[in-house]
């Protein structure tokens, strides 16, 4: 049974189309990375999933329609919109009290035990904490909530590398169990790629690529081609070619790995390289078409 299921999800702001008929299916226990350039429609898609914005098309989250049944949905869904949304006037203890007060599935001891691993004191106000600590605090609150779906929209934007790494490590080690589902958007793709189970590229409101990480591994191959085999490699129609240290690196989609191995060193491309190949190629074509 899918946790999120969308068919033909559309959203327009005036004449600007933010989502142009998106189909999406996320099963329980998956960690989906929603990756796209600025203005691609990622946040709009998440807002639709969270019932924060109206949409056209069919959308079901945990069997509910987010816009109509948002209040009930929020018992089962948590989200971190970005790093700076915790009320700055609140004390850490107030926030724990409040979430404990309003959320039927909040286990304070879980949140407290996570907080104990940080240097955040209960008496501190949010405004006195560093950006990284605020993100930790928000994660601690989310840790305490027994939610089925966690939505993260750029949760580590503007944090230094230590906090970013710690954030995702905690998420994977302390939060994620296989019954929970996570949807995350971020620009720092290299930091999430080891935790994703599924990947979706979205550009100009459309899904450009949607597949599991296992599929990525079997489907895409990057080859650092031996200089004498460049012509042979190009004949296999790579989706992208780049130069590095005088050698050609070609990215292939659905080409036999054995065959490619004879042309040079093969490896699975990083999400960042794949992103540039898929989205970059699309932008070029659309740019040329104009």
């Amino acid at each position: 049974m899918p946790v999120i299921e969308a068919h033909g999800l559309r959203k327009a702001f005036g004449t600007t189309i933010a989502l142009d008929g998106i189909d999406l299916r996320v099963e329980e226990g998956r960690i989906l990375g929603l990756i796209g350039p600025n203005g691609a429609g990622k946040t709009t898609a998440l807002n639709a999933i969270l019932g924060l914005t109206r949409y056209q098309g069919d959308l079901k989250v945990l069997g509910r329609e987010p816009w109509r049944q948002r209040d009930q949905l929020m018992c089962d869904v948590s989200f971190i919109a970005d790093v700076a949304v915790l009320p700055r006037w609140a004390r850490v203890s107030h926030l724990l009290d409040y979430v404990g007060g309003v959320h039927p599935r909040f286990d304070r001891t879980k949140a407290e035990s996570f907080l104990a691993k940080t240097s955040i004191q209960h008496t501190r106000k949010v405004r006195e904490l560093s950006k990284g600590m605020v993100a930790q605090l928000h994660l601690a609150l989310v840790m305490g909530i027994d939610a089925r779906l966690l939505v993260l929209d750029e949760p580590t934007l503007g944090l230094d590398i230590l906090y970013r790494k710690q954030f995702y490590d905690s998420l994977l080690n302390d939060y994620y169990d296989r019954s929970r589902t996570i949807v995350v958007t971020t620009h720092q793709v290299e930091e999430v790629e080891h935790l994703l189970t599924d990947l979706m590229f979205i550009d100009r409101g459309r899904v450009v690529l949607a597949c599991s990480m296992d599929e990525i591994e079997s489907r895409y191959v990057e080859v650092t081609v031996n200089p004498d085999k460049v012509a042979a490699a190009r004949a296999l129609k790579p989706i992208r070619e780049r130069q590095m240290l005088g050698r050609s690196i070609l990215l292939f989609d659905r080409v036999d790995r054995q065959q490619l191995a004879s042309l040079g060193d093969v490896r699975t491309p990083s999400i960042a390289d794949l992103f540039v190949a898929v989205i970059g190629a699309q932008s070029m074509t659309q740019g040329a078409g104009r």
Partner: protein
Amino acid sequence: MNTQSDALSESFQAQRAAPAVTSATRPMCWSVRRELSENRWIYIGQLAIAAVFLLGYLISLHHLPVMMRSLSANDPAKYREAIAAPYDAAAGVMMATLILMSLFYSADALHGERRDRSILFWKSLPVSDRTTVLAKASVVLVVLPLLTFAVTVVMQIIMLVLNSVALAANGYGVATLWRELGIFQVWGQLLYHLLTAHALWPFPIFCWVMLVSGWVRRAVLLWAALPVVAIGAIEKLFFHTAHFIEMIAIRLIGGNAPTDITHGEMMPLGPTTHLTPFKFLGSPDLWIGFLFAALFLAAAVRLRRYQGPI
């Protein structure tokens, strides 16, 4: 389709049956508590104004012996008037403070959370827009008047103690002061007056300001006043009258509310005041006001659904 979706959501419900049900009042109580911690200026401000007033009163006690001498020559009815004047002034100052606080609180109610982006956090929790808006409205309707009442009572107790000490030190008895003041009766009237004339009566105005606070990006009070001024201007232009602006202004300061009958007194607190709660509750103006308040609040709830950070 619907049956299918219901079945789906039910199956998800069944998987996590346990503590999903909270009583409906719990989020409401916590939302009010949130307002109290978020807007600590409402009680700090009241306490600060009370402190300044008390300081002024303490200094004015120097003139007490002179005043007592002039009073003893006059009739005893004047005694109450003179002795009660500072107590009425204390209540008056706190009423004025309440009006301003209610107005500024309403102007920030749905604006502050959008300004500091925390609306995204509040919306991530299972608290409905309706609960949030009603909690904010209840602060104006109940919390602020009760707070003002408590502060005024404490203020007047301190004044009584200071007054008694000053009288005793100058060789006057304090029994007359306590008897003439009728402080317990005054407190009853004060509580009634705050909840009726300063909460229920101007409630639609505060709800309007709250609605505007969820709507505009900045300068809430200015935008809230704009339609009032516009309607007033049209009325002035076509009918050469100013009834609308007068009605709003008088309602805001709690004037013209049929809450009581006073005989020429400025303050509706004292032995001559006759409370008329049934007349007040039966007044069509009050209920027309409630109708507008309900419309504004319903619009504010709807607006909050669509609104995100500014």
